[in-house]
């Protein structure tokens, strides 16, 4: 496996554009996850949170796929679905050509060697009662693997690999800083030499200087071990730095999927454009150029009853009648650049006959069905994390 992986790493993002696409490591088709909302003692089903609704994408060996979106867009749920920490409601997840969508926990276990996850919170993801050595050795124990030279030696090698002192083997997580703890989580994820690592907001809980250290570490490890990453984050600057290709999510859907440079230089979906324009730039001279900024009105609608048609139409300044009625498919508009929009930016209009704008009333953007449900849209993404 390491052969083609290396190749792909060297070829970089350009490889995808040509017709010589390697066999994807992970293929996701129409993936959906709806969390039921139940009521009363009979647990009557009254609705569903459509956290993820119809995602399709490939992850090629050796690449880094970045997934961005705002809170509640389903990016974490997506991460948990492809690692099969959650059971998909619909669609298909294939890993190395094998359908793993509905594998049982037992059947899934051997696969876990190849697919590992790095979590966001370096405080919550390590058991405080276990030593660092124990934590990093757990994957060996669970998989019944004895590495060459024994578990302890291997764990110490891993600690060294991620930049920790191997003599800290017997320490407990609380003795480490946030950045060091994140390194422990990374060492654990790498213990079984996985092929795919899904990292859910791996640096967002860390200080700026530590963030850069961890980003560089992930980068080095990828070169060294030929890893494939799916990195989920909300920080567009970080995503740009780490990814080869990027998927932008909005309300449970991928709205744009493209190579990094194409996405950042000529975004096609209006949401991507708005998102990019909202990133604060560390350059005081640019403050005058504020006029380029697209301010989206209002909040993300609730995934319990997402808007009809294009889910972004309630906040989109380009929305027309067709957007409210017909859902735009994720189409490849430019080579390697897919977007789901009737009126894309930087590209010919997909619906030129339809020009009548839907009125987006400022200040009152979305039909606000979210509020009556308690309005905790922000947390719904986390909720199903059992």
């Amino acid at each position, binding site marked *: 496996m390491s052969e083609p992986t290396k190749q792909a790493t060297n070829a970089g993002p350009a490889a995808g554009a040509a017709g010589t696409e390697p066999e994807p490591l992970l293929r996701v088709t129409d993936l959906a996850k709806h969390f039921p909302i139940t009521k009363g003692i009979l647990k009557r089903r009254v609705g569903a949170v459509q956290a993820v609704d119809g995602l399709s994408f490939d992850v090629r060996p050796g690449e880094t796929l970045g997934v961005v979106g705002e809170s509640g867009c389903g990016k974490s749920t997506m991460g948990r679905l492809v690692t099969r920490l959650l059971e998909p409601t619909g669609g298909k997840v294939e890993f190395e050509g094998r359908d793993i969508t509905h594998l049982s926990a037992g059947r899934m276990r051997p696969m876990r060697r190849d697919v590992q996850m790095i979590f966001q919170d370096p405080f919550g993801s390590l058991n405080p009662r276990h030593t660092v050595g124990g934590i990093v050795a757990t994957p060996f124990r669970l998989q019944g693997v004895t590495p060459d030279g024994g578990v302890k030696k291997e764990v110490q090698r891993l600690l060294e690999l991620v930049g920790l002192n191997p003599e800290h083997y017997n320490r407990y997580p609380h003795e480490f*800083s946030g950045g060091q703890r994140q390194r422990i989580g990374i060492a654990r994820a790498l213990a079984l030499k996985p092929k795919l690592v899904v990292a859910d907001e791996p640096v967002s809980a860390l200080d700026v200087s530590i963030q850069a250290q961890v980003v560089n570490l992930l980068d080095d490890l990828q070169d060294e071990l030929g890893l494939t990453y799916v990195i989920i984050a909300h920080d*567009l600057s970080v995503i740009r730095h780490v990814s080869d290709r990027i998927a932008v999510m909005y309300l449970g859907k991928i709205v744009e999927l493209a190579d990094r440079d194409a996405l950042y230089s000529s975004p096609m979906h209006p949401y991507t454009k708005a998102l990019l324009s909202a990133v604060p730039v*560390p*350059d*005081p001279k640019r403050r005058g150029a504020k006029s380029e900024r697209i301010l989206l009105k209002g*909040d993300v609608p609730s995934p319990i009853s997402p808007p009809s048609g294009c889910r972004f139409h309630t906040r989109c300044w380009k929305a027309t009648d067709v957007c409210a009625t017909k859902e735009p498919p994720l189409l490849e508009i430019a080579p390697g650049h897919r977007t789901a929009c009737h009126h894309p930016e930087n590209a010919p209009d997909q619906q030129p006959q339809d020009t009548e704008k839907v009125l987006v009333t400022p200040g009152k953007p979305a039909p606000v069905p979210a509020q009556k449900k308690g309005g905790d849209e922000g947390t719904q993404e986390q909720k199903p994390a059992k």
Partner: protein
Amino acid sequence: MSDDTHKDAATKDASAAAKDTAAKDSAGKGAAGKAEGAREFLSVRDLRIHFDTDDGLVKSVDGVSFDLKAGQTLGIVGESGSGKSVTSLGIMGLHTSDRARISGEIWLDGEELIGADKQRVRELRGQKMAMIFQDPLSALHPYYTVGAQIVEAYRVHNKADKKTARKRAVEMLDRVGIPEPARRFNDFPHQFSGGMRQRAMIAMALVNNPQLLIADEPTTALDVTVQAQILDLIRDLQKEFGSAVVMITHDLGVVAEIADRLLVMYAGRCIERGTSEQVFEHPQHPYTWGLLGSMPRIDREQTDRLVPVKGAPPSLINVPSGCAFHPRCPYADVPPDNVTRTERPELRETTGGHFSACHMTREQREKIWTEEIAPKL
């Protein structure tokens, strides 16, 4: 004192403003601080906030000074534990624990706050100075409606009947961009989304038209698009009311977006201070270089690697000797005689109004910045 330059405060004449601070800082602390107190809206002189803990004395803030005029925005940047939040709580007079030892001077519109009567500070808080916190969910009371909490903030400081106060609260909710404010007045905080909660917090902070607004990481918990909305809102409100704003954040992007002046903190001390342009374009301290190198920049060409600061921020109980940054500083051996390890560097002026605390000479730093650091960013 350079009185005439004060008149230019509102105009964005950077050089005049720079001269201004320069004169002040060279005049020293103590007496000058008092004289300036009346002119600068907020003057902090040699603020120290130490906490007695079982493990030892934690010097969270160790000698911070700055000035802020009405209508200006000061950004305070630093990593967690650098003392930026403790500074802001100190200004608000919110360190009430017996273990907090506060010294120095804080002048708010000519009034000294440290050692002032508690009742008086209480009157000022909410009226003349207000604060927005990072996490609006824990800063709002879950048991009361958003409206009731704003009404309370208004009635504490104004003799108003409930009806007037309610009208005022609805007006404020409307002003911060909450749709259907009259209906949302009766909602509880949990019924608001993250961005709306932050708006409600801002409405509450601004209900008495405070002249000083302290915002402690107001957008850290928010998504980028909402963050842009909130920053815009703060900027607009500042323009409208002419208030002074202290923006505390770890995000250099946010600071560049909103602040006129910048103060970089490390281990409880101010290590660099100047206008935003000065600090971003000619940063003088190796730590500031490190912060800039740590950030992936969306506005620049893609770089292969970030240039982070090595190591981790120090514990405040055992602050390293000499320059607190020396264990992480790649240039710690540039100054002679091990001075970085033995002597604490003073905040010295480099160019007009631009101060930094580093033992390296100006020429050395200039050389390193232009030859080694800037090309990599």
